[in-house]
């Protein structure tokens, strides 16, 4: 087990720069998740740590040792791939022990490690089967077993759950978390699914366009996003962004969202936004902070406003309501019993304790 550090790491393919100056410190035992949309450089970053991609510039160290020029086998890492990458002609036990056999471990040691990993993953009865006789979830467990038996310094996961169906994905997510709690190996996990990132990670790294947008705990990213991208990427359904103008409102501030609707900025927040008074801003508020007037998520601060619902989506435990503010489609989450039908008008309340203002010029959260 070891810490991993990336210093000014760059990866370019000719003219195209896939990863730009990434700096990252992953302490021992941490479960770090790299998350971002397709092509954001998260997989490339992981593959550079693995040694499957050479780095163009910068430095990667594992356990204090610079590994820039070390081949994958000498980095003491194990990797789980999206498509499992099991050896089809070997049994589960042979798949798991392949790395140990190449490293000339004693037979008794190999058996002990394979049995232990099989017990952790609950695949003891599958050890003599071949990959094609396994289900998707079982194959993924074997792929994890192959990583565990090596007892490496670092686990690397490259979108390991993307090939599983929704229900299995949730189960395997819990399984991965449980395994990490048991073995405590430093883990770098790549996913494009922000729910996976939030549920698994000690810390999440949000990447976009080859750069790190923000690093933080799941709660930090959710409640204190630093950029518009992070605010919009983390959370489902996504945060509402409504263009408006910040104006003075006597001693306080207000955001004019449309001709009819202005939102008074709570006093607790006014000080931080005062400098931007008179400027165009993006007003950001998550759907769960737009509720019915006796809001199930409501805080003390709230402003009521009336809307005409465009679309209503019942989810069971809550109902999504969509309506327009100005030209922007906005989503709110209300109690199923409080929801009205499409086309009807409804009184909603915005919980402004959780509002964000974004500078449209820089896309930074103010």
């Amino acid at each position, binding site marked *: 087990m070891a810490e991993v550090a990336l210093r000014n790491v760059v990866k370019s393919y000719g003219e195209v720069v896939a990863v730009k100056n990434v700096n990252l410190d992953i302490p021992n035992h941490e479960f770090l998740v790299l998350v971002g949309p397709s092509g954001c450089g998260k997989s490339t970053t992981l593959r550079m740590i*693995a*040694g*499957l991609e050479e780095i163009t510039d910068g430095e990667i160290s594992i356990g204090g040792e610079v590994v820039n020029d070390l*081949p*994958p*086998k000498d980095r003491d*890492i*194990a*990797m789980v*791939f*999206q*498509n*499992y*990458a*099991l*050896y*089809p*002609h070997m049994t589960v036990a042979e798949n798991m022990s*392949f*790395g140990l056999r*190449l*490293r000339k471990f004693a037979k008794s040691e190999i058996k002990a490690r394979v049995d232990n990993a099989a017990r952790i993953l609950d695949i003891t009865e599958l050890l003599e089967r*071949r*990959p*094609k*006789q*396994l289900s*998707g979830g079982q*194959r993924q467990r074997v792929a994890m077993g*192959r990583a565990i038996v*090596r007892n490496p310094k670092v686990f690397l996961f490259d979108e390991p759950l993307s*090939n599983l169906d929704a229900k299995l994905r949730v189960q395997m997510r819990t399984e991965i978390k449980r395994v990490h709690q048991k073995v405590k190996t430093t883990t770098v996990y790549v996913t494009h699914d922000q729910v996976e990132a939030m549920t698994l990670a000690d810390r999440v790294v949000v990447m976009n366009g080859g750069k790190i947008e923000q690093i933080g705990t799941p709660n930090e990213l959710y409640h204190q996003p630093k950029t518009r991208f992070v605010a919009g990427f983390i959370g489902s359904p996504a945060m509402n962004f409504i263009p408006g103008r910040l104006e003075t409102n006597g001693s306080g501030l207000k955001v004019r969202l449309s001709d009819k609707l202005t939102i008074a900025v709570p006093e607790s927040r006014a000080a931080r936004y005062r400098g931007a008074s008179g400027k165009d801003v993006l007003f950001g508020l998550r759907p769960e902070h737009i509720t019915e007037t006796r809001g199930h998520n409501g805080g003390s601060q709230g402003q009521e406003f009336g809307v005409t619902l465009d679309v209503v989506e019942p989810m069971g435990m809550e109902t999504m309501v969509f309506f327009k503010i100005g030209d922007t489609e906005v989503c709110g989450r209300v109690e199923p019993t409080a929801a009205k039908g499409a086309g009807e008008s409804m009184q909603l309340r915005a919980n402004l304790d959780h509002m964000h203002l974004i500078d449209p010029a820089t896309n930074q959260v103010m």
Partner: protein
Amino acid sequence: MTAVTATGPAVRAGRKRSSLSRSRKWALYASYFFLILFAIFFLLPPYYMIVTSLKSDAEMARLSTSPWIIADGVTLDQFRLLFTQTDFLIFFKNTAIVTVCTVVITMIISVLAAFSLGRMKFWGSGILATGIFLTYLVPDTLLFIPLFQIVKALGLLNSYWGMVLVYPTLTVPFCTWIMIGYFQSIPKELDEAALIDGAGHMQMLFKIFIPVALPGIIAATIFAFTVSWAAFVYPMTFLYSADQQVLTVGTVTSLIKADVYKWGMLMAGALVAAAPPLVIYAFLMDYYIAGLTAGATKG
């Protein structure tokens, strides 16, 4: 009333089913008809060979009996004469040596070449792979003249070892091409997993790629075997004494003297010569299982 309304859709569905099964039946009849036609077409020559090889010379010379049946009873005289009075067994031994050597050489070169061209991306590997395939498109009837010079310069003229040298020029390009395709179809995560597990290129080849690509290797082996077993132009050109001759040319040259055809022995020889490929096909086809890679990745 309810019964009537209930049967309405059921009857319609039944009609639909029957028209479906009727068209399926016709498709089956048609495929049986053509399959039987082709079976007859392809099995007639071997049948004629077997029948002729089991007849006596006297019966063959007698024009009054049908050539399609054995009238005088089965005799193994043709085989006995073939093995005792001709050099057939020498031809057979030479062919076996040449073929085994050719297959081994071909598979060693092809597997290594295909692995490097298909998996280890390097500058010019794509062009090289295409180039190898293009050499296969040059017919052997064009190549034998320059090859004659080479074989002669090496002192291998009229030696079956010369065949071991020239047959791979026919087999290696095609086998490499087949194997490149097979190796490329193996997901790249498999070598990455092996790299991380600590395998070098050679371990990767022997422990992962060759076992996984076994169906492709068997296909290539069958091809190399068939080509060198049945080669005609090269031995015809490069070999001229009986002790060095191979089956294809040897059988024909020793059993056809000017306009005298020893039909019985020719047919017996052709039958025995055709046996090894037949056995190999029958044996290896069982292992010729596509889908061996199933389960490696999400399938």
